[in-house]
């Protein structure tokens, strides 16, 4: 039974299988242990030379360019729509002057990082899953291995670093665009000036908020990179394996992002009111 846990790629198991619990639970547990082993390996290998800085930069650019336009459009629209939607409620209390602060809090604390992470999970996560997956099923990863190149370092570590570095930047960008969208709407309705808007928007945002926002994005970036790479690296043979890897990369990373959001919000609330 121990073979379920010590043999991540399931290459050496022989004979008929015995299950610890049921088939479903066993395969779930196996998935969790494999993913943890993968994560631990990532941290181990990222500290050992050789480092492929050049490849990290290449990948970062690719990720950034791939999602920039979508983030611009989405961020801008979200800024406008949320402002529009929040106005009536504030008007009831005659508090429309609070609109900039409200949008500041909403976009900086929650919407910016979350929307960026979800877009990148869809766009970047799936493409990493598909790319690594197709390299796996067409034996390109094995080809690296037999040329004495460590594919884990060259492909996985670099991509995870790239997402971890790029997604916080994209998320700050998304915040700026979102606030700009919000400003456009506020300006159109209440003729608030640019400086006043930003002054108000940032007045209720603390250093802790911005910090948390950046840390959140780093965690999301790490998640998207790790999940995409893990799913690709363990893709099954065939074209269906590649599609499945891409698909799973998106689903699993979105799920984890929501989970992490809840945990991080809880932790910051403790810090805030402690």
């Amino acid at each position, binding site marked *: 039974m121990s073979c379920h846990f010590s043999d991540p790629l399931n*290459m*050496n198991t022989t004979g008929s299988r015995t299950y610890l619990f049921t088939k479903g639970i066993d395969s779930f547990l196996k998935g969790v242990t494999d993913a943890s082993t993968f994560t631990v390996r990532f941290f181990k290998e990222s500290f050992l030379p050789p480092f492929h800085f050049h490849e990290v930069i290449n990948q970062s650019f690719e990720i950034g360019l791939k999602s920039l336009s979508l983030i611009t459009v989405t961020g801008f629209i979200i800024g406008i729509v949320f402002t529009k939607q929040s106005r009536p409620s504030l008007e009831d209390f005659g508090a429309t002057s609070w609109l900039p602060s409200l949008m500041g809090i909403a976009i900086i604390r929650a919407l910016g990082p979350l929307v960026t992470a979800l877009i990148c999970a869809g766009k970047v996560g799936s493409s990493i899953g598909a*790319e690594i997956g197709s390299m796996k099923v067409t034996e*390109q990863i094995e*080809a690296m291995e037999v040329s*004495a190149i*460590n594919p884990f370092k*060259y492909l996985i570590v670099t991509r995870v670093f790239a997402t971890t570095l790029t997604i916080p930047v994209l998320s700050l960008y998304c915040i700026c665009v979102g606030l700009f969208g919000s400003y456009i709407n506020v300006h159109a309705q209440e003729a608030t000036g640019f400086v006043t808007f930003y002054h108000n928007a940032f007045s209720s945002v603390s250093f802790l908020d911005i910090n948390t926002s950046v840390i959140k994005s780093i965690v999301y970036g790490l998640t998207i990179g790790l999940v995409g790479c893990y799913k690709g690296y363990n893709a099954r043979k065939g074209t269906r394996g590649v599609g499945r890897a891409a698909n799973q990369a998106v689903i699993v990373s979105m799920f984890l992002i929501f989970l992490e959001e809840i945990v991080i919000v809880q932790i910051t609330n403790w810090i805030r009111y402690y």
Partner: protein
Amino acid sequence: MKEQAKHQINLEESVIAITGLEKSFDELDVLKGVDFTLYRGENVAVLGKSGSGKSVLIKIMVGLLRPDAGQVWVLSKEVNELKRKELDALRLRVGFLFQSSALYDSMDVYQNLSFPLVMTKKQLTKKEVDQEVYEALDAVGLTEKVNEMPADLSGGQRKRIGIARTLILKPEIILYDEPTSGLDPITSGEINNLIREVQERYNTSSVIITHDLTCSKHTGDRIAMLLDGKFIKIGSFENVFASKDEAIKSFYNYNFIQESHARIS
């Protein structure tokens, strides 16, 4: 066998020695006790039906798969006991041509060839890398494709680039997984000559996996028949196919019939 005079086989020194090798996947027993020796300077052609475990066998030789039982000695090292660094050092001395060519499809032909060089021999200058790349491309006769992407190449061209990528690290042992499958007879013939040429020029030892009798006859100093997870016969081409064994006979006849059909039509 005029070719044999040009290179010398050192029967004292084995570069690959395998004993009692077993490998299974879940419930499927693929290799059931393989014993095999490859001598320095020798080419052995491995024949066997599709799915008989030929690719698995050579993947075990370079540590891509782990055997369930048995020992695998390559260049006097037991492959499965090596640490990562030692295994990498060994892999640099062993070339591997994948059945699917396994070219990196995000890179063009030049980068495909230069990548292993640049990554493993950092001291090389740009000029030296250039020279090595063109030399390897020249060997497979595809210098004009240097800037194309693998997706734009034909299957046979991809295979030849795969061979060039294998040659570029100047290995002592080369493992070819079906170098001529899917190629026309003329190109196959060129590849066969290339394999011989490489053997003579660099005194490499090779294992050549193939279905193709012409290829095995032309490139192999010895032929090994893999059947049912074991080598049932190893020896010279004439020797192996003089055998009374039904399986070997049918393998020969089937290929022979196919070839004569091809000649008629």
